[in-house]
């Protein structure tokens, strides 16, 4: 028998590039992130028509227009709620929310924490540039205290959110951080987020060239980044530094940096366990601490049954118990009389 099998042509990055002209400022960190997302999409094994990219409002929220997938550019802060409706309508879809520090943590903070708590199988990419770009340069919920901006000429008096910690507090089941410039690393994170069944929260440090240039340069500039970035890898010791000569260790209930100079053994260095919530909390605490490296990678990862899965189960169960809904029977239930 000559059975001809027609395999669909494998997709490549260019299949995910839409025909729309990209309109971010030249040099914006968003370009790099878009490119990584387009790159990993063909590798996910998901048919293109099953991918939906959903955003709110902000510079990053233009993202869906540039992806040749299904896409929805929503309204300010509501992408997570919009995405929830899409996912519950068709749980087969691979749903990606693109949001920012303003969209996702200020105006959309409420929807963000509730999506995390419910654990729908949705991926959230939160582009954190610590500033409002689209409205031209006001401080955001992740801007540091004292930040001088257009709306805070004397310095902001708002304490910032700590995004991974917020996500942990909201019972997030996959919490990670990447950097726009760390392209290979980011690709790995995106793929990992995709394979996680449940809400994946990926904070991505993104440079806003126009209103907050260089805010992450200590994490991205070649000369210094190795001293300032701790790359978390499950099962591996938390070592950083140009010469891999520094590590994190637990001292009581605090983390401390130790020098690995031969005197202190590697044995003291903490091993990253992404299923350990307490450790994830300690690591998230480093976000704004001076004298500590900034962790990137997966902080926390735990598989918990998703909302969408439970919803389907309940519907199936109801059908099994009561039988497939019968409209006539519904109309006639209870006391009826005929004239």
């Amino acid at each position, binding site marked *: 028998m000559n059975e001809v099998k027609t395999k669909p042509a494998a997709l490549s990055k260019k299949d995910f590039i839409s025909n729309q002209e990209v309109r971010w400022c030249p040099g914006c960190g968003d370009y790099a992130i878009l490119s990584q997302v387009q790159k990993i999409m063909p590798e996910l094994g998901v048919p293109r028509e099953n991918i939906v990219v959903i955003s709110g409002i902000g510079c990053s929220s233009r993202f869906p227009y540039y992806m040749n997938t299904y896409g929805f550019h929503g309204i300010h802060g509501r992408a997570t709620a919009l995405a929830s*409706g899409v996912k519950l*309508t068709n749980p087969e879809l691979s749903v990606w929310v693109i949001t920012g520090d303003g969209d996702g943590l200020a105006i959309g903070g409420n929807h963000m924490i509730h999506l995390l708590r419910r654990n729908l199988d949705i991926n959230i990419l939160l582009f954190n540039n610590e500033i409002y770009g689209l409205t031209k340069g006001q401080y955001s919920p992740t801007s540091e205290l004292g930040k001088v901006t257009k709306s805070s000429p004397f310095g902001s008096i708002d304490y910032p959110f700590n995004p991974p910690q917020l996500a942990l507090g909201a019972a997030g089941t996959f919490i990670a951080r990447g950097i726009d410039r760390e392209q290979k690393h980011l690709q790995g994170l995106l793929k990992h987020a995709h394979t996680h069944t449940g809400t994946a929260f990926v904070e991505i440090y993104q440079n806003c060239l126009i209103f907050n240039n260089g805010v992450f340069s200590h994490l991205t500039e070649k000369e210094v980044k190795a001293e300032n970035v701790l790359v978390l890898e499950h099962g591996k010791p938390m070592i950083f530094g140009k010469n891999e000569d520094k590590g994190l260790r637990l001292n009581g209930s605090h983390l401390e940096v130790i020098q690995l100079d031969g005197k202190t053994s590697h044995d003291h260095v903490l091993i990253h366990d992404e299923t350990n919530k307490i450790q994830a909390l300690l690591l998230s605490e480093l976000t704004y601490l001076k004298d500590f490296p900034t962790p990137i990678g997966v902080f926390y990862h735990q598989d918990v049954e998703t909302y969408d899965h439970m919803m389907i189960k309940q519907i199936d169960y109801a059908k099994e118990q009561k039988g497939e809904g019968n409209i006539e029977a519904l109309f006639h239930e209870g006391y009826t009389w005929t004239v």
Partner: protein
Amino acid sequence: MAEDQQKISKTTEEVDVVTIRFAGDSGDGMQLTGSQFTNNTAIVGNDLSTFPDYPSEIRAPAGSLAGVSSFQIQFGSQNIYTPGDTLDVLVAMNPAALKVHLKDLKINGLLLLNSVNYTPRNYKLAGWESNPLEDKTLKDYRVAEVNMSELVANSVKDLNLSPKVINRSANMFALGFLYYMYDRNLDSTIDFITAKFGKYPDLAEANRRSLKAGYNYAHTIKIIRTNYRIPKAKFKKGTYRNIMGNQAVSFGLVAAARKAGLELFYGGYPITPASDILHYLSGFKNFGVKTFQAEDEIAGVMSTIGAAYAGDLAITATSGPGMALKTEALGLAVSVELPMVIINVQRGGPSTGLPTKTEQSDLFQAVLGRNGEAPIPVVAAQTPAHCFDAAYEACRIALEHMIPVILLSDGYLGNGSEPWRIPEYKKLPEIKTHKKTDPEDFLPYRHDEKTLARPWVVPGTANMEYRVGGLEKSEGTGNVNYTPENHQLMTELRQRKLDIIADSFPPVVPFGNSSGELLILGWGSTFGAIRTAVENALAKGLSVGHVQLTHLNPFPKDLGEVLGKFKQILIPELNMGQLQTLIQGKFVVKTEGLHKMKGVPFTQSDIYNKMVEMLKGLA
């Protein structure tokens, strides 16, 4: 025996229509008593209309005016359109209930009281200066002052029940009393009690005995010389059941989804008086209904938009304050041209207002309340049973035109009930959707010539991936487009899409006179009061017509013509003249308004008296 002779001397009289109100403390079980009486009334074949009125506080202090809960029913052998104006019978379980409701009892009407609750402490708490049972307060009424609690206690002596339980079954005594008065059979309530208290045989027995004690007591006392029989009403042929407005909405939504071959998605946040829609739908999981109790009103409507994008029949329901929160999202829904229904079960406003009371003051909000030019069709339900048709119609418009639709109901309709002639599912109008899976010539914003719907292509459909959003877009491609000509074009297109919906409306045919002296133009839940008043006026030879609008945006195309045939137009509304303003903005007519802002519906006499005033000297 003297007592027996008394029984024999009683007579039965026939009457056409009766209005009863059960009133008591929140804990007295008045809602349950009322709904039992309602079911029993349906069984004897009377037409009926009910209205529950309960406090917004979950546990208002016992015996206080704020804690009074009531249930009203009008039933009869003629068409019953409203729960009734003045009362033939008032059941007042405590002095607070008497204080709140006595004013509505007809002179010579029957007052049934549970005297055990008329203690000095209670009547002072209710604001009576002296005991109303002892002063002249009740001299114009027939008073049945009964120590129900004691009589119930006597009948259940052997059961060893606590005084609290005994007091709680006094409502069944009152119900039994009324069953005797209206010549009813107790079976429906006995069955109910047996089912409800099945696990607690003593409690069931106490309630059964209490019911029978009330029935027998009414039989023996002098004040009830006559009991009444109401002949069966003449219903149109068909099978009927009693239905509440919010329930009818839920049925309409499920039926429309089935008809259109879609699954139903409901995203919403609990709010009085709309929550029952969520409650009903969440019980319909075996119909594949997905209910999503969102974190707030905004997430409720946003998840609904997401569900519409992904291909479900998408619904959200709320009340005024929640509607305000959904406003921004409604603009998005207009812009992305997706089908969905947004239900507003209106209550008294502004702000938190009167959460459990009824009002029609969100009409402007529905028609006009958005930024930009964002036309949304508005459909209004008229009676509890009509909620089914209105919900079905709202879904039809949404799906056939790819547009969000607002359905207006209100607290009075949502919680009220009446007999519903059960439709045959297969005879309900077909609903076609604009789902498309063929990539040939696909453009996401190419509009169908007849309906101006754009194609409904849902994620998961191969080779038709497209992007959509709240920015202005080009006709055809749907690409973002800010050019002046395009915005003009798209704005006009969205308006035209709204306007052509009226092509499918049935002609406006006034009830009563179709031209002449006076037209009463109403919308929504004022139907019953207006129709009753108009029937009365017609019977007295007055020249009046009645039009009750279901479609408020757009208006029916022939409405202007109909308005022009009357010399005067009266527009009664439970607001300060919102329909009146819209009508006068659209048509060159002079109208008069009648506005009631008391949190309660119009009575038929409110309307009737106004008609008479307008027709003075003409009759």
